[in-house]
């Protein structure tokens, strides 16, 4: 299933010629690191034939210089000291390739996110650290080997999770491009949030009128298979070759249903319709809304009289001419093979009953903006008449309260929910349009009308007489007699207390991550940002890609968005997925295991720890073989092998040991050697840099793909070389980018701790950190903590550790 590109390049045994390029990144680096000095230092390092510093190495000129040097100076290794490899490694690898140098002969030193930005006020310490980092990079570079990437065929099918407008758009785009799409929706119908909204801003189109055609397109498109009332239950495999299990829950109504609705007329069960946030009633057998796709009805088995398996009531069966009711239906698990996955799981709305001062749930005339949408919707419970719930009268005055659950760490979420301002403005205009005599007040923090045509709409609202008052009410109280509501708060413009009576209060509730986001995260091994939304591979350059290959985001799953942005992102995600599938092949990074059969004793430990079952054991020959295409590249097999029969390409034992040696060559007793995994902890360290969190410069980060790659002997070697402390950092357990490889990390560190205790060493000197890409603060704190540990280590302890672990120096 995978083949190597021909011809494989011969290993370069001839003299190693390294070129080092130290980037100023304007002042981003040069501001707190003396780049010229770093360059000068680099020139003194073994195998370095030239060393330069320039303003922007990533600029065309910067890249041209490298290309020129490779050709003219016969460089066969390149080291760039600049930003995080997570940002620009691809850029410079390309540069090398253009100049005819195998891209695996390139190495980077991260002196921005992990140096200049975190030591803004310590130029000396920053510069020293930068030198070290370059030295480490050079040490590795000297041992780099050229490598070719293997190609894996891509299944030309996509799984779209979530049937809201984003999911629908992505599905349609992909289907129209000619790919097969499986659109999985948890609810009985696709349509999502948009189907429940009355009008859309700023154009004021009828929401369902523009969505319904898309829904039925998705329903009718022969390349889209709808799986409604279904949930993804398992995802295995890797980019291009995902194997997905979908749990299809029974509808108890077959496709023969003609949606005539006779069944609902006879169903004795009446329940609130979730689609209308309970403001309308539905029956036990029902369709959530008129335009539902599929139109097939569904039975709510939690309420149905027949839930115990015995048909007590058969009214719907009798009423159904086409005999579409089938109580024998059971859940089935559908197995799909897809090459790409689009995550369009959307967002939940904030529950305001957690804010007692607003009286939601206590005062019936306090409703949410979502309930408002159903009330004002012609297809809604009131037939589009804005009724207040106590007396079903049209209120004389309606008050909107903004930022309910948004922009406050105490009352909900810190972030801005993006859509509430414009939604309220739209709603206020709708009221004015239908009931001009009804007064509308909007209480806000500040109005964010940033989008195209938004400001005009805002202006229109003001012109129509909507009163905007800055300052949220501190409290809402109900008049027991009239059931009117009194809003009390401070007008922060006039600096005065207001007390305003309204017949109805609409809480403009924010958006928050789906309750089941964590489940999706685990299934697809994704990361999430601090606010709980899914994290893109890069906020600027790969805004719709997940860090996990072959997975893309569309809509609110990645962060609050309005319809336009959701659709835009959906099309983008579809395009990104399409690009992969159009190629039909994906190249897997050459970071797969290198196997030396002669050293292998056939213990089979590697087979046990491989998260991808990519290693098979041949009983006869007592040897193993590696399925490179299935290999995820974590390197935990290499860490597990007791006989050094396995190592990881581009992260070989020699290279990593050389990095450890480089770090510990000088002042080892003042340093922390840190091993960070590429996806979470290293990204977390970058994030600390991006957020300019300051921490002591004593740490030297060695990047591995996964913490599972960290062989105990690397740690031992660090101590043997006199390091004061060692940090091993990885993704949170369960979030591991390589399914479960970091459980091996835990196991190995615990072993080391035991060993240290037994030999009378302070196990505190070895620290284990689980940090997500979003936990920059956590990372920074850890480094500060490490500083105190380093300071506490006495020289005799250092010496003792050297003794205990000297065996590790045997090297390989």
């Amino acid at each position: 299933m995978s083949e190597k590109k021909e011809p494989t390049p011969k290993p370069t045994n001839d003299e190693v010629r390294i070129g080092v390029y130290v980037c100023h990144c304007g002042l981003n680096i040069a501001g707190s690191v003396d780049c010229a000095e770093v360059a000068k230092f680099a020139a003194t390092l073994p195998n370095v034939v030239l060393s330069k510093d320039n303003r922007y190495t990533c600029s065309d000129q910067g890249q041209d210089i490298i290309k020129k040097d490779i050709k003219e100076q016969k460089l066969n290794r390149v080291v760039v000291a600049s930003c995080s490899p997570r940002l620009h490694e691809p850029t410079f690898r390309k540069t090398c390739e253009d100049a005819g140098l195998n891209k695996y002969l390139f190495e980077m030193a991260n002196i921005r996110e992990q140096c200049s930005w975190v030591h803004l006020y310590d130029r000396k310490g920053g510069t020293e650290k930068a030198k070290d980092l370059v030295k480490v990079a050079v040490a590795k570079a000297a041992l780099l080997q050229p490598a070719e990437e293997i190609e894996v065929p891509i299944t030309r099918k996509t799984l779209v999770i979530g049937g809201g407008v984003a999911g629908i758009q992505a599905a349609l785009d992909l289907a129209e491009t000619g790919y097969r799409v499986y659109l999985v929706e948890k609810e009985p119908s696709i349509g999502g949030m948009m189907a429940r909204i009355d009008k859309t801003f700023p154009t004021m189109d009828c929401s369902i009128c523009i969505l319904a055609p898309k829904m039925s397109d998705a329903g009718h498109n022969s390349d889209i298979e709808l799986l409604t009332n279904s949930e993804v239950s398992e995802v295995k495999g890797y980019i291009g070759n995902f194997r997905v299990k979908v749990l299809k829950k029974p509808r108890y109504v077959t496709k023969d249903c003609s949606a005539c609705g006779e069944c609902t007329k006879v169903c004795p069960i009446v329940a609130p319709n979730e689609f209308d946030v309970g403001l309308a009633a539905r029956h036990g057998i029902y369709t959530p809304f008129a335009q539902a796709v599929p139109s097939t009805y569904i039975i709510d088995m939690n309420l149905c009289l027949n839930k115990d398996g015995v048909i007590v009531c058969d009214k719907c069966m009798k009423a159904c001419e086409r005999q579409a009711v089938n109580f024998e239906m059971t859940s089935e698990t559908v197995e799909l093979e897809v090459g790409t996955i689009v995550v369009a799981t959307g967002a939940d709305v904030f529950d305001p009953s957690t804010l007692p001062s607003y009286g939601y749930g206590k005062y019936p005339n306090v409703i949410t903006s979502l309930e408002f949408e159903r009330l004002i919707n012609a297809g809604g419970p009131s037939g589009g008449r804005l009724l207040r719930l106590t007396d079903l009268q049209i209120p004389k005055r309606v008050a909107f309260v903004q930022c309910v659950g948004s922009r406050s760490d105490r009352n909900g979420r810190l972030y801005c929910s993006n859509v509430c301002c414009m939604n309220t403005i739209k709603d206020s205009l709708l009221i004015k349009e239908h009931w001009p005599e009804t007064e509308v007040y909007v209480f806000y923090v500040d109005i964010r009308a940033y989008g195209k045509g938004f400001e005009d709409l805002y202006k229109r609202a003001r012109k129509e007489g909507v009163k905007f008052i800055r300052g949220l009410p501190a409290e809402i109280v109900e008049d027991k007699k009239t059931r009117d509501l009194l809003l009390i708060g401070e007008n922060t413009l006039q600096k005065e207390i207001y007390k305003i009576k309204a017949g109805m209060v609409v809480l403009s509730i924010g958006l928050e991550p789906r309750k089941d986001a964590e489940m999706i995260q685990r299934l697809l091994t994704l990361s999430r940002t601090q606010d709980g939304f899914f994290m893109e591979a890069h906020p600027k350059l790969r805004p719709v890609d997940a860090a996990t290959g072959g997975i893309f985001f569309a809509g609110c799953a990645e962060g609050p968005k309005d319809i336009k942005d959701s659709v835009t992102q959906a099309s983008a995600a579809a395009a990104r997925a399409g690009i992969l599938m159009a190629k039909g092949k994906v190249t897997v990074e050459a970071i797969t295991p290198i196997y030396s059969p002669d050293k292998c004793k056939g213990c089979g430990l590697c087979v046990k720890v491989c998260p991808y079952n990519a290693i098979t054991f041949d009983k006869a020959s007592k040897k193993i073989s590696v399925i490179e295409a299935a290999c995820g590249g974590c390197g935990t097999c290499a860490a597990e092998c007791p006989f050094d029969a396995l190592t990881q390409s581009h992260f070989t034992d020699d290279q990593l040991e050389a990095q450890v040696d480089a770090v510990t060559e000088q002042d080892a007793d003042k340093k922390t050697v840190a091993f960070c995994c590429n996806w979470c902890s290293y990204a977390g360290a970058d994030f600390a840099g991006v957020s300019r969190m300051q921490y002591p410069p004593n740490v030297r980060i060695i990047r591995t793909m996964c913490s599972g790659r960290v062989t105990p002997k690397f740690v031992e070697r660090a101590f043997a070389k006199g390091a004061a402390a060692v940090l091993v950092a990885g993704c949170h357990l369960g979030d591991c980018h390589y399914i479960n490889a970091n459980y091996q990390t835990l196991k190995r560190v615990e072993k080391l701790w035991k060993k240290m205790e037994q030999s009378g060493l302070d196990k505190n000197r070895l620290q284990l950190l689980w940090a997500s890409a979003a936990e920059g603060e956590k990372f920074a704190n850890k480094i500060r903590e490490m500083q105190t540990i380093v300071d506490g280590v006495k020289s005799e302890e250092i010496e003792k550790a050297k003794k205990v672990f000297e065996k590790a120096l045997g090297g390989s």
Partner: protein
Amino acid sequence: MVEEVMHPFMKYLRSEMIPHIWCPGCGNGIVLNCFVHALDELQKDLDKLVVVSGIGCIGRTAGYVNADSFHTTHGRAVAFGTGVKLANPELEVVVISGDGDLFAIGGNHFIHAARRNIGLKVICANNFNYGMTGGQQGPTTPLEAFTTTTPYGNIEHPFNLVHLAAASGAAYVARWTTLHVRRLTMSIKKMLQKEGFCFIEVISPCPEIFARRNKMRTPLEVMEWYKRASVVENFSDPSKAEISPQRLVVGEFVDVEKVSYEKLLHEKISQINEKAVNW
């Protein structure tokens, strides 16, 4: 609430025979109820209906249904029905009888009628014993069950009736309990509209005789067992349709289109007469 009014199904019953002779909670009453319910929903022409039964409690059913009906000797209901159906294929011949009657003394007739696929509609109320004669062991009595003739527990393996019917060639085979009244009624309706030999087994409480001896003190306990243990497995392998305290597999097991014996016979007859003309 109103009292002493005419039950809607009374018109299908011989009022002088109601209340029937069956014990409190006896499943036979439910089988009869479901049967007339099906007749009612199909608006069956009662003039063309013949209900045949054999011996035993359920054998009285023929006497209760207000249509042409015949109460035959032990086990002969199916053979008798065969004669009726062949003599006048217009008639809907329904055999309602018990497990002992149909599968012990009448077993041979049953399998051969199924083999021929003659258009009889057979409903068997299976109560695991001979109720009317006082609760003796029968062809469906579960292993280790206690009856008046297995005081130490039954050592005979019981028939799996749906498996037997399917293996013998029935065109429609279903099993329900007397708790599954809706599905049973639906099955009976389906059967009454189908060609060929059809068979429905109804697991039916014998509260006074069998249940008492087997640690189920009340009719309700038997129905609770049905509720607890029943699993609907439509069109699953009838040979695996077990009946045990833990698991009671019900459902439709066979539903195939198959030309009936009487149809084939009358086709043959007309073919032969065609030839006769050409002589």
